């Protein structure tokens, strides 16, 4: 469970309301694949990932990024029960996708960088603090069913 103060919840809600979830998803996933190239191991079927431009322009990356971030968005509506919200996805990532949970932390931090880039000064240290709690909570929830 993520413990956000009322101010932190307000900061998260206010900023998230202005996020183009589809675009930010593609950018976050793309940057994950560029900045931490070993994460490409999960995406052999995605085609050309040979350069930053190829990754960022890749339609499969954009589509998958959109999917991932819409799911994250659902989590934001259920901050009091992230483990329940992400239980099925946690099982999927362990049993079928075999994704090391370390990758959830990497993506969470890349997402924070993308939000910082989009919001500039609005992404205050307080807002960042709130989002760091959220991405850590989501990463933990996604790892919760691992065995």
């Amino acid at each position, binding site marked *: 469970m993520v413990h956000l103060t009322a101010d932190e919840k307000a900061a998260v809600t206010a900023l998230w309301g202005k996020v183009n979830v589809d675009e930010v998803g593609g950018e976050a996933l793309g*940057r994950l694949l*560029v*900045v931490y190239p070993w994460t490409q191991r999960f995406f052999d079927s995605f085609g050309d990932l040979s350069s*930053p431009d190829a990754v960022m322009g890749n339609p499969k990356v954009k589509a998958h990024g959109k999917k991932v971030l819409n799911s994250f968005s659902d989590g934001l509506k259920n901050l009091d029960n992230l483990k329940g919200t992400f239980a099925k996805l946690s099982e999927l990532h362990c049993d079928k996708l075999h994704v090391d949970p370390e990758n959830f932390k990497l993506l969470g931090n890349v997402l924070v960088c*993308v939000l910082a*880039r989009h919001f500039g000064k609005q992404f205050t240290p307080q807002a960042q*603090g709130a989002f760091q709690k959220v991405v850590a909570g989501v990463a933990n929830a996604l790892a919760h069913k691992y065995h």
Partner: protein
Amino acid sequence: MVLSPADKTNVKTTWDKLGGHAGEYGGEALERTFMSFPTTKTYFPHFDLSPGSAQVKAHGKKVADALTTAVAHIDDLPGALSALSDLHAYKLRVDPVNFKLLSHCLLVTLACHHPAEFTPAVHASLDKFFSTVSTVLTSKYR
């Protein structure tokens, strides 16, 4: 992990564009680190860590100046950072996990203030650079 010629160029070009604000960004990155990762405050019991603290700003400038030196000597980081490496190993003994936290907050600070420069390729190069600096600073720990 090795810094490629392209990485070095990305880092130098970006650092040059900071326009003398590096010191200010160092302070902001520290403030973000303390706010997002409260365990990092344990290394500064002797500091006023409230928002706007003069001590945090001064320390941030120190950190930024060291990074500016590192950028200027990017081809010999172990040499340029040798004294700081000794300091961190024998005196400060900051747990290695904390370098990742500060590095992340440095990236966030730069992304906030220089969104156009912070392309995916530059993001990658900066992350590698901070990681390399962190490795040098913890290289004498044991």
